[in-house]
């Protein structure tokens, strides 16, 4: 099993689509530092705010890293493209393997369950990597420019309002809040990858397979728009700035279900897989 996982991980990470997706994520993350964090820290125009003149609360790491700047188009772009970025690296690989019949050779050598399980694990790891690495890079780079001043609700510059999930955690342990949201993004990224893999059995076009989670997220966004459940749309729920109210346990439960159901379908279908 270890060898088959190592083989799939090597395939997942050593390909140009992984590099392309990671570079897009890093471009957004570094671009955010250049356009938001660096000006806050260095620009003359922000000097008054930065000095805390008149009791105004200066920019803090917890109000300026990519996850919490709802006013930055780079933040919105990153979270909007998250379902797509997560699937670019390797989520279409099963579809490609099946259409080229390469899967037959691998199944002969590894066995069905090992092949499909390795595929799921490698896809999840690559999906998580392209999302989590840019977020961590942005957080660390922002911390190099802006001090980690403790968030204060009365300062009115921090994103968490009492209607947001884990708002209390944000004001009492902001680092934990950040880690929780990065983990939430990782959970959903793995789920999106697994969803693409599971859809490869019924969809035979790799681009459609890759776009399926993104299309579902956009559909959820439009269907829930304007309703009380707008905050549960994955694109909204994953954003640490939380534009709409939601419930943490429900968001996590949806993420776990989105991860487990495609994994289950893939393993069941894989168990009885016969290429014709």
């Amino acid at each position, binding site marked *: 099993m270890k060898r088959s996982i190592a083989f799939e991980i090597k395939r997942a990470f050593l390909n140009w689509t992984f590099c392309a997706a990671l570079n897009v994520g890093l471009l957004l993350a570094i671009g955010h530092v250049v356009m938001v964090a660096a000006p806050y*820290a260095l620009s003359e125009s922000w000097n008054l705010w930065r000095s*805390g003149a008149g*009791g105004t609360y200066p920019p803090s790491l917890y109000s300026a890293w990519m996850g919490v700047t709802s006013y930055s188009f780079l933040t919105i772009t990153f979270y909007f493209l998250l379902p797509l970025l997560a699937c670019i690296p390797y989520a279409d690989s099963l579809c490609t393997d099946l259409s080229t019949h390469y899967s037959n050779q691998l199944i002969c050598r590894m066995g069905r369950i090992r092949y499909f399980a390795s595929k799921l694990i490698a896809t999840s790891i690559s999906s998580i990597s392209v999302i989590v690495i840019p977020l961590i890079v942005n957080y660390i780079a922002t*911390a190099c*420019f802006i*001090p980690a001043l403790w968030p204060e*609700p009365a300062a009115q510059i921090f994103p968490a309002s009492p*209607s947001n999930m884990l*708002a*209390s955690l944000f004001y009492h342990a902001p680092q934990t809040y950040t880690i929780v949201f990065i983990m939430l993004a990782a959970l959903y990224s793995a789920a999106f990858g697994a969803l693409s893999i599971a859809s490869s059995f019924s969809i035979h076009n790799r681009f459609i397979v890759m776009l399926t989670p993104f299309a579902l997220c956009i559909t959820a966004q439009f269907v829930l728009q304007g309703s009380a459940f707008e905050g549960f749309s994955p694109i909204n729920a994953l954003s640490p700035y939380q534009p709409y109210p939601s419930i943490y346990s429900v968001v996590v439960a949806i993420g776990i279900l989105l991860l487990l159901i495609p994994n289950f379908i893939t393993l069941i279908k894989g168990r009885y897989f016969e290429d014709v």
Partner: protein
Amino acid sequence: MKTPARNSIIISLTMLAILFASAIAARMYYVNNAAPPHQIISYKLNDYVSLREIDETSDIQIASKEYALFTIDEYQHRFGKIDESVLSQNQTCDTKILVLKMSALNKGPQENQTNLCLYSMQQDAWVNGVDLLLYMPLNKAKNANITLQPNEERTVLLPYNMYDFQFGFNDNWIHINENPFELVLKTYPNKVFIALGLPEPTSSFSSETISVEAL
């Protein structure tokens, strides 16, 4: 088997990574040390707080006396009818009005002005400012400023609105009376606030409005 050349590449890359991580850690340390320390200064109910904590030239001291949370009906019963235009804004949701009794005392030798409506009420992640549309009729005031003669003390009532939608799906709204509130006077560089404790029952809240006492 690893070749010596490969080993030296691995060692060099590891050294570079350690150096890079050290540089980042040093930079973060510098950035955080450059910011002034953030102290938390808290006062209790009935403590007189010198506004020099906020404005170095002020001779005024303020004190929070008591506070309670009212429903719209309780508020109207106690403080008089709310204007229709103001009330209509609050009719679409469940609303509570927190009323804080606050005193301002001029300890200086000259006449002084202050604005008590500048301070925010906070409970956990919830925060709101004074509703001036309620403040004016409640205190029979024309604006938010209070003028105080030397040694004069005035008491005003500060109304803060709380709406159910501000809490989304959180059940904090249901337990709103069970958590302490804070009156935040300043957030930076030091956080200065008055810890108000739990709200009093509305029945024990004395409803006198502006009173002027010469001390």
